[in-house]
């Protein structure tokens, strides 16, 4: 059969990875509570499914390796093997290895690399040590006649098959005729005799019971095993006797003794079916025992359950709490497309609404308002679809914390809270690496060794906490450790050394701590707390900033460090603040906007001279958007101008714009490659009237500006560099 299993294989890969993840979680649960039988069950089921499905695709390496794991888990389930930490460690290593095997499939590479093969062999050996030699289960069915298969190839290919179906056959879902039809696919039924002697008198007959028997002369070149296999499913409910083409007369004689019919009748059946010639019958008769032992073949139990009564009754529907809720798997691309389309819909809707507002007909306005409301709901709904709880990402770190703390000889407990907090899947995917880095840092350098902790009057067991919560359209992720905290003095010293802190200045504690996010700052000898993983904290910061998020940290010497990451809920849509500069429009992410105020013409003149204004006793540098983006003044300079105060971390700046147009829900369209070199823009958006608005990337803009001003100071020039985006490029 030629069927294409490619798409199913993709499903398998996703499924296997999910299952492996669940298994890993289950193992970590078992490490604390080895007697949790539900978890053992789900662990076993995971291995079982991974192996079973792998077999469908012929993924032999996965099948063979997982088989060993499954065996082991089966014994854990039967409680013949106890869970201890060594077993957990082995099983964790095994899930890792299966994951690797799945990766091999996913990457369509030929096989594991040499190292992985070595690991596999080592794991197999360790699995073997748990193995006990179990006696091979005896064949439950005793073969009726022993055949030399090579003899089958003799000229005579005619078999004799006697079938006596039991009463339960129909109730067990079996149709005797389907077996006969199947038999015909293995050879040719030359002759068939039906016997109904088991049929009771009509009043006693149960129409749901089967009373039929067949004697068949069957021509086939198949082996005994193949023909015998045809009756596998009906073995419990049917006495099957198969005599090979080379069966001796004594075998026929034995068969006659075993058939339930009277001997005369049985003989007649054999002759009628053509398997025995009348002449042969005499010799068979001479071989028959005078008193045939009573047949037991048809004494089938009325209900097979009684037969197996001793086997433990399967726990009546162990209704597992439906933790494993049901999902529809949707390809991420499809969701992406949906969100894109809804984004377009929002824009088109805004256009329609704008047109309607020019129209005096109120009915049209009502209609567009209703549409707009629905569009908004659709948008929310579409975005929610991509929202996933961050808990899954968090719980992956249980394993990291466990492994790293073992490796370091520390005793550290990971506490997770706020795992149900949801955020966009694309954000979740990209937050993993920075989180990993921060967590490893906290484990490695933050939390002290147990002896040191006790000496400092702390509990020997260190605590690391991952927390998440929503805060004003953002999600905040906190990594909190109760370790030794950052070394303020050494960071300050290092900062001075690197000219990051002006000589003589004493920055605030938080400014000092945040120095470690500077590129190239963290080096092992400079900072003892957060360092030494090869990748600096600046990379972490860059990753977070790329997600339009921010990161800062707080630390108390001897008490611990809190790293706080602030992330947008989604990357597709932002709440923006729309401003107009000349003919152009810009969107400022709302979370960056602190306040707006009017710039009076008197203040304007002064401000233009010095480049800053007095904001309630604070110096607020100004950025004149007209100049900065080289936009021509639309009208005379007399128009009212406004200042939008934007902030990032501790920096603040006032953007001088013409018009404040208010909050605006913005669907972000990425800028094309052509504009890749531009700094200060996070994307673009299309307004309801079809105009294009550029989205300002405030952190990048501020960085750029401070670089510019430094350059300006050194060059003693006063004109700021322009980002040279002209109107022409944008339209």
């Amino acid at each position, binding site marked *: *059969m030629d*069927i*294409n*299993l490619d*798409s*199913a294989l993709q*499903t*398998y890969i996703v*499924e296997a990875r999910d299952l492996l993840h669940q298994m890993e979680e289950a193992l970590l649960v078992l490490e604390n509570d080895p007697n949790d039988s539900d978890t053992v069950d*789900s662990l*076993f*089921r995971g291995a*079982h*499914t991974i*192996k*079973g*499905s*792998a*077999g*469908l*695709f*012929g993924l032999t390496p996965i*099948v063979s390796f997982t*088989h060993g794991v*499954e065996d082991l888990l*089966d014994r854990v389930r039967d409680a013949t093997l106890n869970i201890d930490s060594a077993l957990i460690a082995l099983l964790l290593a095994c899930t890792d290895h299966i994951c690797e095997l799945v990766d091999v499939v996913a990457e369509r590479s030929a096989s594991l690399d040499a190292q992985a093969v070595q690991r596999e062999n080592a794991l197999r050996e360790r699995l073997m040590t748990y193995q006990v030699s179990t006696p091979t*289960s005896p064949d439950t069915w005793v073969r009726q006649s022993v055949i030399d298969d090579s003899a089958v190839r003799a000229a005579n290919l005619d078999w004799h098959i006697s079938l006596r179906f039991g009463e339960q056959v129909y*109730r*067990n*879902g*079996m*149709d005797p005729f*389907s*077996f006969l*039809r*199947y038999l015909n*696919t293995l050879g040719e039924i030359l002759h068939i005799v039906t016997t109904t002697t088991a049929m009771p008198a009509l009043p006693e007959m149960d129409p*749901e019971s089967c009373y039929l028997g067949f004697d068949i002369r069957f021509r086939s070149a198949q082996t005994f095993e193949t023909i015998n296999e*045809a009756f*596998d*499913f*009906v073995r*419990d*409910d049917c006495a099957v006797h198969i005599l090979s083409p080379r069966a001796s007369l004594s075998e026929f004689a034995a068969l006659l003794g075993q058939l339930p019919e009277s001997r005369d009748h049985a003989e007649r059946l054999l002759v009628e079916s053509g398997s025995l010639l009348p002449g042969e019958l005499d010799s068979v008769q001479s071989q028959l025992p005078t008193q045939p032992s009573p047949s037991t073949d048809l004494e089938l139990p009325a209900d*097979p*359950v009684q*037969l*197996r009564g001793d*086997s433990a009754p*399967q726990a*009546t*529907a*162990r*209704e*597992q709490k*439906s*933790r*494993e809720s*049901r999902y529809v*798997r949707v390809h991420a691309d499809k969701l992406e497309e949906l969100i894109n389309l809804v984004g377009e819909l929002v824009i088109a809707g805004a256009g329609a609404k704008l047109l309607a507002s020019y129209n005096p007909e109120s009915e049209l306005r009502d209609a567009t308002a209703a549409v707009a409301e629905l569009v908004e709901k659709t948008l929310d709904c579409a975005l929610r679809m991509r929202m996933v709880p961050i808990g899954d990402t968090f719980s992956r770190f249980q394993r990291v914390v466990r492994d790293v703390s073992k490796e370091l000889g520390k005793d550290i407990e990971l506490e997770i809270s706020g795992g149900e907090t949801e955020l966009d899947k694309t954000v979740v995917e990209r937050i993993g690496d920075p989180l990993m880095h921060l967590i490893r840092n906290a484990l490695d350098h933050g939390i002290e060794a147990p002896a040191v902790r006790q000496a400092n009057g702390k509990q020997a067991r260190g605590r690391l906490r991952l927390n998440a919560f929503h805060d004003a359209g953002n999600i905040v992720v906190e990594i909190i450790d109760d370790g030794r905290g950052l070394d303020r003095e050494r960071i300050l010293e290092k900062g001075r050394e690197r000219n990051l802190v002006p000589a003589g200045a004493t920055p605030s504690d938080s400014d000092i701590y945040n120095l470690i996010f500077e590129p190239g700052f963290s080096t092992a000898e400079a900072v003892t707390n957060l360092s030494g993983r090869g990748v600096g904290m600046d990379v972490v910061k860059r990753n977070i900033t790329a997600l339009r998020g921010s990161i800062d940290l707080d630390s108390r010497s001897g008490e611990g460090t809190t790293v706080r990451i602030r992330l947008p809920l989604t990357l597709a849509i932002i709440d923006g603040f729309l401003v107009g500069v000349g003919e152009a429009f810009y969107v400022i992410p709302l979370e960056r906007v602190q306040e707006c105020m009017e710039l009076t013409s008197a203040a304007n003149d002064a401000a233009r001279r010095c480049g800053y204004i007095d904001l309630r006793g604070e110096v607020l540098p100004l950025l004149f958007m007209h100049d900065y983006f080289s936009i021509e003044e639309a009208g005379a300079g007399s128009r009212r101008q406004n200042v939008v105060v934007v902030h990032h971390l501790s920096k603040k700046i006032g953007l001088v714009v013409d018009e404040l147009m208010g909050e605006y829900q913005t669907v972000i369209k990425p800028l094309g490659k052509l504009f890749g070199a531009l700094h200060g823009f996070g994307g673009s958006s299309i307004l309801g009237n079809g105009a294009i608005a550029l989205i300002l990337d405030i952190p990048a803009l501020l960085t750029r500006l401070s670089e510019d001003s430094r350059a300006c100071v050194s060059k003693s020039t006063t004109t700021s560099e322009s980002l040279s985006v002209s109107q022409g490029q944008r339209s």
Partner: protein
Amino acid sequence: MAKTILVVDDSSSVRQVVGIALKAAGYDIIEASDGRDALSKLTGQKVHLMISDVNMPNMDGITFVKEVKKLPAYKFTPIIMLTTESQDSKKLEGQAAGAKAWIVKPFQPAQMMAAVSKLIMP
């Protein structure tokens, strides 16, 4: 009219493969992710064969078979259990419950088709 087969397995990839193979052979398929789901999908329509996994969340295969045997409309429907060689006891339990046929996992689609054709014809 094409015959209908109910496929019960918590692994969607198994359902997919089994489904592809059976559809290619001309059967109609009803899929269910566990025993409970399967029971809810047995609404009186004619089902000619059921293929069920043993280990499933919510309701396992053995319980499912026992429940099916209580349904007048389906008590004569043949059921194939998907078992593994490590689960001999499960196989016996399944047979005791009334699922007399089985396929040992891992299996190739062709093996499954052979098992199906022992029980029903397309």
